[in-house]
């Protein structure tokens, strides 16, 4: 039986974008025009009760047009990419911009700027088959040693191009592989997940064994009274901290609105914290405005040095776009490839060595060894913001919580609910240690990537047991 293969197309994305720009320029002479063509081949094999139960793929080309004319702006998109469909998209956009309300905040078009240099796409990842995904799931299930398992293996391949009427022309290509799974034992779960741009980096057997070891170590949990505890957050949990910092903290629109705590130039986080948005080859090479993505340091040794902007929010702030337009205007601009810089000189910088038991790898174990009494947390789940300014967040622990005593994991715990300001958790003096290895974590949003080491924090506010 042959496997799914890339469907050939008679035109690449750049040719399609240029054709639409030509049609739009003729229909709306003098307008600012942007055209983006993006083809995504997304495939995801999902397993539960140790068998593949959902197995999906799609191959979708979407063309987006944004017009600004006579002070008014309209945008639209279509998956109808034959000649008639694209012409209809242009006509609809031209009609809309003629009657749209006035848009005084239009920032103008992105200037000509080249695409960033990135490594060539891993062909194996880009052309991964259902068989490739099933092979990794088979290995995960087998490595779990008979425990019930669930999760997914995902592959995606993106090719895209952006052109505008100011002469900007940019194209890119990327591929992503992600795997995320749990092993289950008598009501407790252990988890392992990893993301990479290379198919060969995803070893279902390694992840399945890790998840199973954590599930075994989580068996027979006990309740610990709510309160403030010292914590070690594993990289899986730290990715949630990074995501919330990116979306609500270092988001140029949130800052301009006064809804964020971030203040450029201020010493806001612990001096051990450096946050960098940088994942070359992950997701699109350019943002929705056509600005090339670039490495952006947001926090340098505790000092906020930048926030993320798209063209609109940058213009409002009197700043330059950092290439972080998301296409979701009401959300503003945020860094979707945020990483916490791992600690140097720990001896764990080069690899994430597997260790037995609840602690997934040696770099995290080194942080646990420094805790006299505290809590080890694998995942933070269903986190929601109570107040953006303080970044007060509530959520729950998931997939494993353990008591640490005298540098050793001594007891699995039942899940907690917490209500904690993420800003305060990372405040000066609050970070007691950072792991030496940063692991890329897959996100539900394929083009996002959170790269996190473990974190040792002085205090985390557990406000209740999850069972009541």
């Amino acid at each position: 039986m042959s496997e799914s293969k890339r469907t050939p197309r008679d035109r690449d994305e750049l040719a399609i974008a240029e054709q639409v720009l030509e049609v739009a320029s003729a229909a709306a002479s003098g307008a600012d025009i942007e055209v983006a063509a993006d083809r995504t081949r997304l495939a995801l094999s999902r397993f539960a009760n140790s068998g593949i139960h959902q197995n999906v793929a799609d191959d979708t080309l979407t063309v987006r047009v944004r017009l600004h004319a006579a002070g008014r702006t309209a945008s639209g998109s279509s998956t109808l990419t034959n000649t008639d469909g694209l012409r209809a998209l242009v006509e609809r956009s031209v009609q809309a911009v003629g009657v749209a309300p006035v848009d005084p905040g239009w920032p103008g078009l992105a200037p000509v700027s080249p695409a960033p240099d990135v490594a060539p796409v891993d062909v194996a990842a880009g052309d991964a088959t259902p068989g490739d995904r099933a092979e990794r799931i088979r290995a995960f299930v087998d490595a779990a040693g008979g425990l019930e398992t669930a999760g997914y293996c995902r592959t995606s391949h993106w090719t895209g191009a952006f052109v505008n009427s100011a002469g900007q022309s940019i194209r890119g290509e990327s591929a992503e592989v992600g795997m995320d799974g749990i092993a289950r034992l008598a009501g407790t779960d252990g988890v392992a997940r990893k993301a990479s741009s290379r198919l060969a980096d995803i070893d279902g057997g390694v992840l399945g064994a890790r998840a199973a070891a954590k599930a075994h170590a989580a068996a027979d949990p006990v309740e610990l009274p709510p309160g403030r505890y010292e914590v070690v957050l594993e990289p899986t949990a730290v990715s949630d901290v990074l995501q919330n910092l990116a979306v609500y903290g270092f988001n140029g629109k949130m800052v301009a609105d006064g809804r964020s705590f971030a203040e450029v130039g201020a010493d806001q986080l612990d001096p051990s914290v450096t946050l960098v948005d940088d994942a070359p080859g992950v997701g699109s090479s350019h943002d929705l405005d056509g600005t090339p993505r670039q490495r952006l340091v947001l926090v340098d040794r505790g000092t906020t040095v930048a926030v993320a902007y798209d063209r609109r929010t940058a213009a409002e702030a009197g700043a330059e776009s950092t290439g972080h337009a998301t296409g979701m205007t009401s959300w503003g601009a945020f860094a979707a490839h945020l990483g916490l810089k791992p600690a140097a000189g720990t001896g764990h910088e080069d690899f994430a060595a597997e260790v037995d038991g609840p602690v997934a790898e040696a770099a995290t174990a080194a942080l646990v060894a420094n805790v006299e009494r505290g809590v080890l947390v694998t995942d933070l789940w269903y986190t929601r913001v109570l107040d953006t300014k303080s970044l007060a967040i509530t959520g729950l622990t998931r997939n494993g919580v353990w008591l640490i005593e005298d540098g050793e994991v001594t007891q699995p715990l039942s899940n907690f609910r917490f209500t904690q300001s993420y800003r305060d958790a990372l405040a000066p003096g609050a970070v007691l240690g950072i792991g030496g290895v940063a692991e890329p974590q897959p996100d539900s949003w394929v083009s996002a990537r959170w790269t996190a080491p473990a974190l040792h924090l002085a205090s985390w506010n557990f406000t209740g047991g999850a069972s009541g």
Partner: protein
Amino acid sequence: MSEFETAEAAVQAALDAGASYADARMMHRRYESMTARNGEIEDLSQDEDLGIGVRALVGSGWGFYAAPDLSDAAARNVGEQAAQIAHASARVAARQTELMPGEVASGSWSSDCQSDPLGISLADKGNLLAGATGTMREHGADIAEGLYQIWDTRKWFVSSEGHRIDQHIRECGAGISSTVIGDGETQRRSYPAARGQYGTRGWELVDELDLPGNAARVAEEARALLAAPQCPAGETTLILGAEQLALQIHESVGHAIELDRILGWEAAFAGTSWLDLAQLGSLQFGSELMNITIDPTIPGALGSFGFDDEGTMAARRDAVRDGRWVGVLAGRDSASVAGLEYAGSVRADGWSRLPMVRMTNVGLEPGPHTLDEIIAATDDGIFMETNRSWSIDDRRLNFQFGCEVGYEVKHGKLGQLLRNPTYTGIGPQFWRSMDMLSSDIVAWGTPNCGKGQPGQIGHTGHPSAPARFTDVRVGVRA
């Protein structure tokens, strides 16, 4: 080729490639949204997508493939690819998949729509949002925001069993919110709900909301919150407004009764459920005032349709009757596994996504009281309304909600305003404590229900009314 002929070609190709069952959904969707901010339009977007998705069953495994190409050859390729993916599923086989027998339906269905929302001029719609946000700004909002969204969806469904169904569903809704920036915190008031109100109706829904008429009040309430005292911490009697209770129903009842969660199919991501099928029909979920129905036939509610996305005709069903758990949200495959004889709650977010168990309209039947009677009967408590944050565990037991606004209730009357109201609890304990329920039911629409991998956004409806709960923990904060 007609839409049905294209879909039939795709199904036939899947059967030719070895599928024992296949179905195809062709969908054409137009989406329009506009946002306004501080009296000016911020964004206008008009999107259109058209494509076909095929679900094929080979042995014990499903395969799904989708593409926007609609030529005969392309449609056949979609069917073949779906079958090939299903073959790969067999390498890590799940238990044998069977479909619950059901009526093979043919028919058409359209939602009611008095005023086509895509037919209203952009200028009029823009002026509505710009005017309302401008008014909020004038009345004290630091950030005044407005939003409307419109979906116009046509879909054609065929299956290898002979289904042949087309539907036209129009949905729209809108809302406004005011945010004020204080010293170290923000406050927000929204109308009519945190994300607006939505339904399977025309623009008349938005007209009836009267956004301009509520703009000044919303802004002034947001400003007043900055000076209000914190919601006290402790256990008290809690009265919830209908919009907040709608989300409570969504999170702690709707998701908990999804059969795919109960069967463990969502264990690694969305989670499971605290409910055990062995207790279906006997478990006391809530107080005797708690009557929850699954009803996709409610005219105008956001979770309404004529047929679900595997061809089952819409039908009303009890989920909780007199407080006892009696029904689930199911699809044909999950119903077969569970030994149940009903399905009808499977939907997909567009042609490129696999249909899965989703809420339809899951909500309360009316109670015997009014909100005034509930407040008058409360000696000491807190009234909260309008959702601000929501969080619940992966078994749908432990929840914590934040609301935009709270009021003291003292000696049967509303008292002073309270800021940052939150409450937390355990689902069945909370529902068993419901001792008063209003008769004033509104079907609130939730247009942003996330589930599945790849992620899907579902549109759900939740009939709800103000209600009272006893001994609830409130005032949790960082």
